[in-house]
């Protein structure tokens, strides 16, 4: 029974944490126990502060990710299908992908000022190249026989892309989308640490400013929870569907 083992593990972890916190080894403002952290989490949610912060962060994530998705799909398709674009833009994308997206933050602040646009820019830079490369890989590895079959059945022009190339590339695209989302999430948190309005990253930072480790840990828990939830609610069902259709269930 794996769930039983899992529950036992987390119970033990919390118990050890509580014991160490109470031992007086570290002052409580540096290492609060799980009970205190959970209480902070609860009151933060009840007061609405954490809820608002989460919503602000999720909105930025959604906007940035949507922009990356549109640009990434188009760019990936072009790079995957047009040889000279692959040789030029493709190599640039590959290079930029190697750059951790947080590195865009100083430039974004110079360009846009420390505001919403700078943060969304960093989120876009986080997700864009992973999505582009995923789409490109999927498109390039489309078995030529699907294209031949589509053409002999009368498919022409754009419908070859929408009805054959993109669906054929879906498993690889999905990999890119997932990696893109996790990069976007990380860059968003990094960006928000520097930013003054209420958000998840900002709540972390304000916890530090107030010497309130309980708040820092509570927000960390919240960030983990949101990340896992997005994975479970959005990506897991899509992945399962694709696996079932393609017969990739191993």
């Amino acid at each position: 029974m794996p769930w039983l083992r899992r529950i036992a593990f987390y119970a033990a972890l919390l118990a050890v944490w509580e014991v160490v916190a109470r031992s007086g080894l570290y002052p409580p403002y540096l290492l609060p126990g799980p009970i205190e952290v959970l209480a902070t989490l609860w009151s933060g949610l009840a007061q609405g502060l954490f809820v608002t912060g989460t919503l602000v962060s999720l909105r930025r994530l959604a906007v940035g990710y949507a922009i990356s998705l549109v640009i990434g799909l188009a760019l990936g398709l072009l790079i995957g299908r047009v040889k000279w674009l692959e040789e030029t833009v493709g190599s640039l994308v590959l290079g930029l992908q190697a750059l951790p997206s947080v590195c865009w933050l100083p430039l974004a602040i110079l360009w846009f000022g420390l505001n919403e646009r700078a943060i969304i820019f960093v989120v876009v830079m986080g997700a864009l190249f992973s999505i582009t490369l995923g789409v490109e890989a999927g498109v390039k590895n489309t078995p030529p026989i699907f294209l031949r079959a589509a053409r002999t059945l009368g498919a022409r022009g754009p419908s070859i892309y929408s009805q054959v190339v993109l669906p054929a590339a879906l498993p690889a695209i999905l990999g890119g989308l997932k990696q893109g989302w996790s990069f976007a999430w990380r860059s968003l948190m990094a960006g928000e640490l520097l930013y003054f309005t209420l958000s998840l990253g900002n709540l972390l930072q304000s916890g530090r400013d107030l010497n309130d480790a309980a708040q820092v840990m509570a927000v960390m828990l919240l960030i983990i929870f949101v990340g896992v939830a997005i994975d479970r609610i959005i990506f897991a069902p899509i992945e399962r569907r694709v696996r079932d259709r393609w017969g990739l269930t191993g």
Partner: protein
Amino acid sequence: MLEHATGVAATARQDTIMTAASGGIPLSIQQVSKQFTTRAGLLTALESTSIEVAAGEFVCLLGPSGCGKSTLLSIIAGLDQPSGGLVAAAGQPISGPGTDRVLLFQEAALFPWLDVQHNVEFGLRQRGVSRKERAVIAHGLIERVHLQGFERSFVHQLSGGMRQRVAIARALALNPAVLLMDEPFGALDALTRDRLHSELEEIWSATHKTIVFVTHNVREAVALGDRVLVFSPRPGRIIADFRIELPRPRSLDDLALAAQAAQITATLRAAMGDDLNTRR
């Protein structure tokens, strides 16, 4: 009442698909050749080849692997350009793919992201046929290839024989005048292949479509074809044109068929032997 009406429409529609005005068209292949540029230099896959196929004729192209017969089929389908020569369908020179000629592949080439019904509907969707009408046509054809109940199945859930049946239904949905079949049953076990032979023969006698069927299996060619064109090894050219007069439906166990096959095999052997000798 409504259901009944749709049922009648379906039957009527299926009748038009299967019989009326769906007969084959003649194909004229005039001095078609194909060269590929490879790292080793210019490779001739197909030497200048001319074939006249009558409307509704079932022609088998028989030859060893790499003799250019599949290349020729792609050229007739309009998916590849010939290096020289001309292909005309019903007297009109072809310049690209057209749904009057549909190519079927050895790997079936079904789309794994679509279920059986939507695979069958694919060509109709390209043609802009309404969703409702597509479903009616697809149902009729799925029944015709004995796959009723598998409409919602995905490709990986089907056996090799079932996949080829779907591929045949998908091609028939467009009601093409010509079926171009590239070793469609090559990867199937003998029993499944026999069944598909007789099913294909039935479809052909019901529709009188022109069929060009590529195979390297002599008995398959003799069992199916009105004519068997034998290709030499690469560079491919036609070395014999057998007319098969055996009565239909044919059986692989028929002695006359076996004798005919033996004769063709001998021709093929001689050609292969020539090839081996010249290489030495």
